[in-house]
């Protein structure tokens, strides 16, 4: 169907403006990260007076960025893997079995999404400290504590999305697998999981981004050795003189893993949402 010319033009104008709005900060981030300090301390310049990669070298020594980076990778990576595995089990249980308390479970898990983070920040902090005192397992200030917290943050959405996705995988398939001598878990991993790969990838991307970007709990629950990027990045801004070119360079560096991963996998995300969340 040929679209009318007026539609094509309005589309062009709207999408162009929107692209500008979306990319403006990306341009500022990229161009400022290549500017000498004078350019970012004085009046804003659309074009750098000279290009330099100096900020990209300095960011690693101004704050211990590499350490924060590794911390974020460990925390977000572990949280993602655990969250996906746990969500797969839970979603399989809900989508394939009828049992008492099922509705209570799904409603409770989903409703945790509306909890203001601020409500359980302090109690969680107290729980972690007390568990640490009682058992010697250091949860507060440790990566493990942060991993447990973050993986739980992404669980409700992941479970919800995977339930929808698993339900679109025909039950005949798992029954056939069970006839072939697999147990329920065999059916899950040989049949259901492979059929639901787009949904699982989407959930993994979501879980990783949640953990990589969280600020509130990271700012309270980490110490000098476990600090993640979310908090560490503010290190450039607490000096008397803000090294904006370094801030921008660091922002770009910490964004690359998630943005690249996200853009590579966004097809899966859309496919996953189509089948899972949007029914």
């Amino acid at each position, binding site marked *: *169907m040929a*679209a009318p010319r007026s539609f094509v033009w309005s589309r062009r104008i*709207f999408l162009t403006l*929107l*692209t500008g709005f*979306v*990319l*403006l*900060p*990306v341009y*500022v981030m990229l161009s400022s990260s290549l500017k000498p300090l004078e350019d970012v301390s*004085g*009046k*804003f310049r659309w074009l750098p007076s000279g290009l330099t990669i100096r900020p990209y070298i300095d960011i690693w020594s101004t704050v211990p960025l590499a350490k924060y980076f590794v911390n974020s990778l460990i925390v977000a990576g572990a949280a993602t893997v655990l969250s996906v595995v*746990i969500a797969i*089990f*839970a979603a399989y*249980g*809900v989508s*394939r*079995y*009828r*049992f*008492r308390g099922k509705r209570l479970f799904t409603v409770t898990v989903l409703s*945790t999404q509306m*909890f203001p*983070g*601020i*409500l*359980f920040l*302090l*109690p*969680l902090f*107290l*729980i972690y400290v007390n568990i640490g005192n009682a058992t010697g397992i250091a949860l507060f200030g440790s990566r493990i504590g942060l991993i*447990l*917290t973050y993986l739980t943050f992404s*669980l*409700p959405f992941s479970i*919800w999305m995977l*339930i929808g996705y698993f339900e679109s995988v025909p039950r005949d398939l798992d029954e056939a697998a069970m006839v072939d001598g697999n147990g*329920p878990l065999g059916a899950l991993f040989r049949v259901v999981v492979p059929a639901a790969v787009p949904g699982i990838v989407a959930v993994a991307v979501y879980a990783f981004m949640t953990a*990589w*970007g969280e600020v*509130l709990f990271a*700012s309270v629950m980490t110490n000098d050795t476990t600090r993640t990027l*979310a908090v560490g*990045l503010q290190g450039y801004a607490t000096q008397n003189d803000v090294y904006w070119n370094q*801030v921008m360079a660091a*922002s770009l560096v*910490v*964004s690359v893993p998630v*943005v690249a991963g996200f*853009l590579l996998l*966004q097809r899966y*995300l859309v496919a996953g*949402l*189509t089948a899972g969340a*949007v*029914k």
Partner: protein
Amino acid sequence: MTVTAEPAVGKEAPPGATAPAPRRRTGRVRRIALPYLLLLPALLLELLVHLVPMVIGIVMSFKELTQFYIRDWGAAPWAGLDNYSLSVDFDAPIGKALLHSFFVTCAFTVLSVGLCWLLGTTAAVYMQENFRGRGFLRAVFLVPYALPVYAAVITWAFMFQRDNGLVNHVLHDQLGLTDSPSFWLIGDNSFIALLVVSVWKGWPFAFLIVMAGLQNIPKELYEAASIDGAGMLQQLRRITLPSLRPVNQVLVLVLFLWTFNDFNTPYVLFGKAAPEAADLISIHIYQSSFVTWNFGTGSAMSVLLLLFLLVVTGVYLALTSRGRKAADV
């Protein structure tokens, strides 16, 4: 696969506990236990991170929990409803500030969710049909969603700087719209700055969801409509928007909850103390708890916030699902 026996048996039984029982019984107990075992890790984590802390938070809101009792919060004296009456005494400074923060958050949320939905839906509808560069644009539009909050918001904070930011450079130096460079991150303008950043960050999610929703509308509907002579606007009104209703119902609720509870954006944009005009409720409560070390009052405020969100969500779901059977998850 219907389970009829009481599930408590299965729930309590650890995997190996039934080993001495005859084989058939083991299988039966296993089958009853299996769904619970599958759910167990998720349940334990939800209890640890969400549910138990929430209960403790509610208990804390009835205690006089100041800095003296942090090490042993159980020893803090009970405060009855003092924390609540302090929070809702709108004539006193604390209650007044909370009420102000609440109104700011409401205005911010309505505007942000509305704009996010509008931009996301418009873009998704415009991009429903294929054209050259569509895949590329889709990837570009998802960049704000993919960028880590702190990296994106810190860039906006740079753009909003008074002396060396892009916004004042364009508005003041290049367009001459203001007499002097404005402050964006303090004073009344901070509300606008916060709104712009929030919309920039939030609309791609609406776009993503609406786009996914559009893919589920059968093509035949449009074909039939255009044979009947319906124009594009009519198709939009008669097919696209009604088909999107269930998607929108969830989308608007999720956007509302996220925006209302948003902490990250104002925290990175303004630092620990937000300017009054952009004093979102999460930041306000954080401030009341951690800066003044008064956790009892902070918890009471959080509980009030949760109650408000529960009521709004309940009313919203009741209104939107009237006449439509609530989706059974």
